[in-house]
Structure formats: C-alpha cells, structure tokens
C-alpha cells in the first residue's frame, strides 16, 4: 500500500478558503490528504501552528493566502510572506525537508489552482516519505 501523507492546510477565509470551496462547487477532484483549517487571514498563522501540526504527526503543512495585493486586510499576506523565510530557516535547522511546508497564493476564483497545488504537494510529500519529526520530537522530549 502506498504511503498516504497527512497534510494540514491553513487557509485564509477570504480568498483561499473560498477558492477551495470553488473547487468543490466545480467538482474538481483532488487528493484527500489535505485537511483544511480556516483562519481569517494568513497573517494569523502563528509559526507555532506549523510546528504543532508537524509535532502532532502531520507530514506536511500547506499555507494559503490571498495573492499579494489582494489581502482583505490590506497587507496581512505580506506579513505571512515575510515570516515564511524565517519559518523555513527554522525548520531547516530542525532538519525538516523544505518541501514539507509550502506557502501558496490562491484566489477565490482559483479552484483548479488549489486542486493542482494539493495534488502536487501530496505527491512531493509522498515522495519524501513519512515525517520522522514526530518520533524525533518525542525522543527529544523524553531525553529532557
């Protein structure tokens, strides 16, 4: 049986979540591996959410927000955009493969794009195999 990764998706309410809904109303099929959590704005996504998800057994984390310039709150997505490299650097220090966390812009009319991103990400994470973070973190905790 092939490995089915578990991916947590954090989607902003105004563009990306609506775009994911559009994929549904347009009946665009995609991999079932991403489970979506809605936040009001991508700026709300605390790096700890990502760490928490990886800690709790996620094999990947997908973050989606409005395209630059489209933010419902003017520039929340820029804030996410600036946090993202820091987050990636942090994850790299933990030895987490870069493909496991991904930031994408999805608008409310991009149902197909959302589906494509999910499929692509699922494939990439599947190729990486199960995340060893959960066990690593558990060992780490135990040692402390």
């Amino acid at each position, binding site marked *: 049986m092939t490995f089915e990764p578990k991916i947590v998706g954090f989607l902003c309410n105004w563009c990306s979540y609506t775009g994911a809904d559009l994929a549904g*109303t347009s009946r665009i099929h995609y991999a079932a591996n991403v489970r979506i959590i809605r936040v009001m704005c991508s700026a709300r996504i605390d790096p700890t959410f990502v760490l928490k998800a990886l800690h709790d057994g996620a094999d990947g984390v997908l973050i989606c927000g409005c395209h630059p310039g489209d933010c419902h709150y003017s520039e929340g997505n820029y804030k996410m955009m600036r946090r993202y490299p820091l987050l990636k650097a942090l994850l790299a220090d933990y030895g987490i493969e870069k493909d496991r966390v991904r930031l994408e812009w999805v608008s409310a*009319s991009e149902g197909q794009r959302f589906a494509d991103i999910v499929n692509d990400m699922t494939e990439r994470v599947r190729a990486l195999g199960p995340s060893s973070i959960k066990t690593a973190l558990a060992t780490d905790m135990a040692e402390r």
Partner: protein
Amino acid sequence: MRIGVYLCQAGIGDVDAVNLHSIASYAANLPSVEVVRDLGLLPKVEPDAFAAEIRAESLDRLVIAGDTPGFFKPAFTRAMALAGEDPKEVRLASFNAFGASSGNGTARAKSVLACAALGVPFPLAAVPDTTAVRPGTLIVGGGISGIQAALEIADAGKQVHLVERTGTIGGHMAMFDKTFPTLDCAACILTPKMVSVGQHEMIDLMTYSEVAHISGSPGDYTIKVRKKARRVDVSACVACNVCADVCPQRVTSEFDNGIAERKAAYIPFPQAVPNAYLIDAESCTYVQSDGAKCGVCAKKCPKECIDLDQADEIVELEVGNIILATGYDVYDATKIERYNYGTLPNVLTALEFERLTNASGPTGGKIITKTKRVSKKRGEEWVFDVDEGVPPKSVAIIHCVGSRDANHNAYCSRVCCMYSLKFAHLVTEKLPGAKCYEFYIDMRAFGKGYEEFANRIKAEGTFVIRGRTAKVFAQDGQMMIRGEDIISDRLVDFPVDMVLLSVGLIPAHGSADLATMLGLATDDDGWFSELDYNASPTETERGGVFVAGACQAPKDIPDTVAQAAAVAAGVLKSIATGRGLNSRADLALSDIERRATSLVRI
C-alpha cells in the same frame, strides 16, 4: 438695474424642445429687462461691438439664455469688462443643464431664465416641497452598484427590495477574472458582498424578476414585480447539480458569454447568490412541449424542489425610494463588419475573453484559440477545447470598438482602455513569449493608479500602437490585422492568432422601458439623465428616483461603487427624516418664479 437678455443657441441636445419665440416674449416682460435679442444658432459675438451695445443701452446685467449658453459667456464677460461694467454680472440661463430639453421644456426654460435674470442660482430656487416617504427602497439591478447600494441601506437597518433580472446577483463584475489596476481577483472582493446580500435580513432579494409596473408618487411608489417562474424552489435547493446532470438540453451559457454551454436546468455560476438552480423555460423540453416530454429533472431532484409547471407571479411592493442600477450591455461587435467578428473564430469580444481567462471559466483560465469541431448533429463549429486548443502566439487588442465613432457610438466608454491593458497583462503573464499588441487612439488612464498601471503594461513588453486597426481579415487561412502605426509612421499588416475587441458599453436592454415607466429623461445615447451633471449626479428630475453606476453613463468599478454609496445618502436621508423631495419635473413656473424672487437678497 438694466438687464439685457440674449438668446444664443449652441445646437446641443433636443433643440426643438423649447419655443424660443415664446421664451423671448416672456423675457421681455421680466422686471428690469430692457433688451431682448435672439442671436440665433452659434452666433459670432464680437466683444467690442457688444461693449458698445452695453454702453448704449447702459446695461448692468446680461443674461445669456440657450441650450448651452456657457459657450458664449467669455465674449459677453469680455464685453462687460470693456464697457466698464461688472463682468460678474453675466448670468447663464442654461436650458440643458436644468432639464429644459425634455417634457415641458419651454416652461422650464422660462423659469431658468427668470432665475438668471434675478441673479439666483436655479437649483436654489427650484426646490420642490417635501413629502412623506415610505421606509422601503426598491433597487433595480443586482450588479455591483445595486449590491453596494443595497448593503449601504440595509446595513443602516432599512428594508431593501433588490430586483434582479437574471438568476443571480453579481452582474458583469462576477464574470471578470481580475480588476484593474490592482489586478485583484473580482470574485475575492465581490462574492463576500454577494453572500452578505443573500443573507441580509433587511434585503428582500428577488432574482429572476423584473419590474413590470410602477405607479404612485415620490415617497410612495407601488411596484409590481414579475417574478418569473424559476421552477426551482430557491429556499429548498441545495445546488447539488442533479437537475443539470440529467437535463438533456444544452444551450449556450449567458454567463460565459457564449463561449461555453449550460443545460436548460442550470446555475449561472457556482458562486451564484441565491445558490440555487433554475430552469430556463426557453430551452426546457418539458416547458416547450407543454409537459408532454422530459420532466426528468423534477423526477430526479433529491429535494423534490422542482416545479416545472410553475407560473410567473406578480408581487406588489410599496416603497418610498427607487434606485436604478441597471448597468450596461456591451456593443454588438457584429455591427462593425471590418473586424469580422462572428466570421473569424478567434475574434473575441472583451466579455468572452474575460470568461476565457477566468480561472473559473470554461478553460480554467487557459488562454487558447478555438478548435474546429465537426459533428453530424451540429455541423461545423469552433469551440474552446482545453485538450486540443493551442495558446495563441500573438494577440491583438483593438480599442474603441463601437465607441468614439460617429458611425456607432460617439461617446467614450470610459473603461475599455484600462481593461484592455489588463488583458495585455494577462496575456503576457499567462503566455510568456506571446506577442501582444494594443491598438488605441488615446490611452485614457485617468484614475488613481491607472497611469502607473499603463506604464507597467508597456514595460512588460506589450506593443502599444497608436492607431486603431482598420481591418481584421483572413488571408490564406491566416488571420491578419491591418492598421496604421502613427507614432512609428508606417502601416502595419501582420498575422495574429487572436483578436480581442474592446467593445464599448451601451445602456442595458430594457432601461428605456424603465425610463418610460418613471417618466425619466435619457440622453441621446439612452443613459439615464441625472438631475444636475455636477451638483447632483445621482438624483433625477423625479423625486425619490435615483441612478447609480453605469446606467447613468459608463463607469468603472470604483466610480460605480462611490456613486452607489452616494445614492444611499439620498435614500437614508429621506428615511431618517421621513420626508423626501417631490419631483422637480412637476414644479410649476410660477412656483420657481416666486421662490427665486424671495431669494433675490443674496
């Protein structure tokens, strides 16, 4: 005071609406009027000669009266200065500006002239009495202007009846992919508003409905709305698509502007509000066969909410104010033969391209050319086929299609330059390597951030050619375009794979009927006439009737939204005080004369 009245006509508007002879004799009887002269059409007014006349008659106020007397004012002002009189004492009696070009034009023109002779601004004198206003508001048209106006009023806690002709609100904006100049996605900013309208407890949303009859008076209008048989129960439908799945009838989709098909049982687009299907009686087999055939959707509907035998229904509403937000249609490009729209498959209109490039459109936003498909049943046709269609290597965009043209519409449609630039951006962005040409006359990038946007598009590599294309034609199976590149001083004649026609805007079909129902004036092109071009751009001569958005004249989204919100001010003000203005159209000459006389002190 000695006043001279000079009738000067510029020949603008409905010049026969007023009886100049009658106006002249009226003017002669006004107090202090010493001289009345009819100078005719487009008179040559020599300031020096006139200064002599002013001196000879010792006039100290001049009134220029006519359709658009401002054209002659500088000459008279100069004459006054030369004659040593106060140049400020040149008053305009502008018939067109104050609604004397329609209805009882002569009486109105006289009142305008009386005000000018007294030195009182007409709008200050011509204020109708107030009348009690009902709290409800009717909004005709569910595009962005209707939505905006509805939300402004409903958010204030006032009842709104929003009547929309099609099966969903959203209007043209819902069809767009991106909006200029910020390129934000139309759906992202529009759909939340649509959902708000659908869920608002103060908005009575009536889609698939039309205004059938209007009676009553300002503040107290009775509206008959024909709710067309949707044949699907909106409150029960869960938009599951079963009816469309089983429906055997395919027709072209209005929402996709004909570049894709829909079923007879359909939803205009997935995010429609209300999110419910409808049965198009025109193409439904069951309805067309009087119930003899088909009816399969009703049988299969899991919610049993389809009633194919449903009939139209008339609903009566009582409202205090009416907002017209009927928007626009686009110019029929087939009327311009030289572009071969309708003959050459890859000549597309702007709205067709909007759907083509839209991520939720028939091709998922892929810009491709049409493919020929031959079938026994339908013969030869050109369709967008996502699998077989190839992206165009070159795209030409032609501005001013049907606009700024004496042979079609003489006016500028205001939005086409900017949306054409947006198209160029989408083409260069989605098809790197594809060449994109803009053929324009004047690049009208006038709004906030527009000029910067135009600069950006040019920097992105779009060839911007000053000169409107003269012809699109086929030569040896290849589409060709011919135009003059004026700045480079040469003729261009080259092959293109796709041509986009930036079609202009025309008043929405049916708006003339509404104007008739309300006794509302329209301009020569059919756009609703506002009360006062500068001072009152959203009111009309009819009390309690407002205009918002593109139905008054072509307008882009920011301007439409601003105007729609502005309309709400008039409505909310009248509801807040319980009193609204009567129709200025009904004001009698004597009323205005009396008020103007009482205001003379200023």
